[in-house]
């Protein structure tokens, strides 16, 4: 039966995924993304999206406030660095735990409602967190400037083990390995691989099946003797923990936590990442996260000089025309590309990028199979 074969294919998927992530610095260099900071962001937002997908992809509950958990994770991690130790392990553990607790509280209230009412409740909580963190809670969050490390922080655990950082501002290190640059990426990458494994287990587990049942038909679940609330609540907390971990890792690779991380636009971004990649699929959210971060960091960096260079093979008049048109979409116009991309994806590939990959694969398989294929449905799925 198909259902039993999955173990083998899952193992292959997992190994391929891990290999691709670990080889990221080499694989992504040709497209200009092979530098530590962006690689770290890929991994971190990959974790965030994986967690969000457990809630949204499986149970269908659309949270518009997940950035709050990311932000809380970041603040927790920076405070851990300040008070306990510069080692990232306590920081990410506490970030995960606090992210989960925060999610438990917000989820407990928000999950009393469903549909758009649930979305607005999560949005409201996240916006309250953001607004307060930005202003009134400045003693805890350092407001607009963001929570930073200081040379004079107590770092109780480090002090207990006799670690002294001298006059320089310390930065997080994993038993002597600095957490910036490539080591920081590999630390995040390993976390991502662990999270991917966890996410895969959840997808294949009876618990995961129940979550998909929540999305499909809550009524039937109730009359089948299943209590939907704790399932949704558990999914909410798990995704909050993933978000907390992602926030913690952001602080590990770059020890600063700002309030804007919690703004609704940041929550919206994770929704977009998940849908763009393909919600409810294992791999999609990670791909979606990568795509958006790539646009944000690479497309925004193109200026006219670079474009002139890129089109230098054209005759001069055409070169100017090409640069004129392209420059609308890159550099200061990168948002335009992003907006257009959202529209194109959702119009032509309702299942996200994963659906695109699957179509290409199916087409390829069909072609090589009987040569008669290629009838994959590529027109926009009109609703009527």
């Amino acid at each position: 039966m198909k259902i039993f074969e999955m173990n083998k294919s899952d193992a292959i998927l997992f190994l391929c995924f891990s290999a691709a992530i670990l080889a990221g610095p080499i694989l992504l260099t040709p497209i200009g993304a092979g530098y530590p900071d962006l690689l770290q962001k890929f991994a971190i937002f990959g974790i965030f999206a994986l967690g969000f997908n457990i809630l949204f992809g499986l149970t269908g509950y659309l949270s518009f406030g997940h950035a709050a958990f990311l932000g809380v994770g970041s603040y927790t991690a920076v405070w851990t660095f300040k008070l306990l130790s510069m080692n990232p392990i306590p920081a990410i553990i506490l970030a995960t735990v606090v992210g989960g607790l925060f999610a438990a509280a917000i989820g407990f209230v928000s999950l009393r409602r469903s549909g758009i009412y649930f979305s607005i409740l999560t949005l409201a909580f996240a916006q309250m967190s953001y607004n307060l963190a930005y202003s009134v809670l400045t003693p805890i969050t350092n407001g607009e400037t963001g929570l930073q490390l200081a040379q004079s922080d107590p770092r109780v655990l480090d002090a207990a083990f006799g670690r002294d950082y001298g006059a320089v501002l310390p930065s997080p290190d994993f038993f002597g390995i600095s957490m910036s640059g490539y080591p920081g990426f590999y630390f995040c990458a390993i976390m991502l691989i662990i999270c991917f494994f966890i996410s895969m287990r959840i997808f294949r587990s009876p618990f995961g099946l129940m979550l998909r049942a929540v999305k499909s038909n809550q009524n039937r679940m109730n009359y089948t003797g299943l209590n939907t609330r704790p399932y949704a609540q558990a999914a909410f907390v798990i995704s909050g923990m993933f978000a907390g971990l992602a926030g913690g890792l952001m602080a590990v690779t770059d020890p600063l936590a700002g309030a804007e991380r919690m703004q609704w636009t940041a929550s919206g971004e994770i929704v977009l990442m998940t849908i763009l990649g393909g919600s409810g699929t294992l791999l999609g959210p990670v791909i979606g996260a990568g795509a958006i971060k790539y646009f944000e960091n690479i497309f925004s960096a193109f200026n006219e000089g670079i474009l002139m260079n890129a089109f230098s093979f054209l005759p001069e008049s055409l070169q100017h025309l090409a640069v004129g048109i392209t420059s609308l979409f890159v550099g200061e116009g990168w948002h335009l590309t992003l907006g257009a991309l959202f529209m194109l994806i959702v119009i032509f590939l309702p299942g996200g990028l994963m659906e695109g990959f699957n179509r290409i694969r199916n087409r390829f398989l069909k072609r090589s199979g009987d040569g008669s294929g290629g009838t994959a449905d590529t027109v926009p799925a009109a609703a009527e």
Partner: protein
Amino acid sequence: MSILSVENVNKRFGGLQALNDVNLEIEAGTVHAIIGPNGAGKSTLLNCFVGRLEPDTGTVTFDGKSLLGIKPHEINQTGVSRVFQTPEIFGELTLLENVMIPAFAKRDGAFTMNAWGSVAGESDMYQKAMDMLDDVGLAEKSNDIAEQLSRGDKRRLELAMCLVQEPKLLLLDEPTAGMARADTNNTIDLMKRIAERGVTMVVIEHDMHVVFSLADKISVLAQGTVIAEDLPENIKGNPKVQEAYLGGAHL
């Protein structure tokens, strides 16, 4: 011995007395049909059994425990399963998954955080679900998406989802509505087989062919009141029943 007893149940919706002092005893191991004209309160009564509605007054006792004031999933866990008028299934999931979910619910209770196990590794649950699908004739479609089934198949799937839980009491709300005759007969056969296993059933049905092929006992509901309760052979001659239906039914 009665497994479900309904005493003095009343339910009003605004100005409408939907249920008027209903009393009912369902004997264990029997098939009990509830018939009556449209709007008689049949579905309302059923809803009172599963926690979807709360009666204004009266008691509903199942297996010695009250069913009032507890949530639908708790009622199900005591052994009551329900088939709906329009099939309630997990449309996006496969047939196999649709049947495995109730199987898990029966084994693991209302909530279990089994996030590390593997559905694929649960071979006895799988076997149970496949057997059940086989029972209702859907085994070869086990990997299809439920939404794509025909209406009759959806109904059979829902029945399988209820039966895999081995309920003590099975409530069926018009199980053959909208089915072709052949399908209806298949369903009657299936229900007969279920009845032979000793499952108590309460059936709401319009199709008298179904009612008379299955029921051990029939209650007739009209305007929220039980106007007759008798063996099938006696019901046909009951003048109250004839009046209630006013020749509107194929008695």
